[in-house]
């Protein structure tokens, strides 16, 4: 399953790109599992996802939790806690 991943703020800086299309291996069912898998993809990903507890995620532009199923997501975003306002 190909999913568009988007990264924002320091997650984007650490990964070194704003977005990419990724072929997610079968067996990865949740957002948390996806983060664990991403962390294994190389040094920059390991650095970005070394503390998944502080990273927030959104599926198709809606906030989700680590235990949320990926389901039929077309876009998943990872970012630090928000600091707007």
């Amino acid at each position: 399953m190909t999913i568009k991943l988007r990264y924002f703020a320091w997650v984007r800086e650490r990964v070194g790109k704003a977005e990419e299309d990724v072929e997610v291996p079968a067996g990865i069912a949740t957002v948390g599992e996806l983060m664990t898998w991403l962390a294994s993809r190389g040094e920059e990903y390991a650095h970005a996802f070394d503390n998944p507890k502080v990273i927030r995620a959104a599926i198709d532009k809606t906030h989700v939790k680590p235990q949320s199923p990926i389901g039929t997501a077309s876009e998943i975003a990872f970012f630090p806690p928000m600091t707007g306002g």
Partner: protein
Amino acid sequence: MITTIRIQREPFDAATEAKKLSAKRTDVGALVTFTGICRGNEGAEPIAALTLEHYPGMAEAEIERHVTEAIERWPLLGVTVIHRHGRIVPGEDIMMVATASSHREAAFAAAEFLMDYLKTRAPFWKQVEKADGKIWVEAKATDDVAAGRWAAPDKKHQAAE
């Protein structure tokens, strides 16, 4: 009901925007405006500017969700939310929330509710330019607490996360 949600790079005029909510009508008895302004310091250190990154599409959608909730919870006559992105220098306005109602209670409460949720749920990230480099602003736990107090009892667990 007048609802305006804008995400933009350009400056805005908060007074002009707020006035639109009470123009040409006589049922508005209360208008609350909050304007967030770029400070010249972050902590004890001076900053040259801040840059706001956002998630286009989701920022609008998330603000809209909370504006809809505010309209459901309070008897509002108008809501305006404008949030800038890009580079902003100290003294410039970053964002505004304006709420109009017949009476002040609803206008005050809805404006505060929207601000508390925008801080913790709208996908914006601030980076400040200090003398020794650019630093991402860290989220404050007190902002989560502020947002949590608006949750209905059955939603409290969700909001606290």
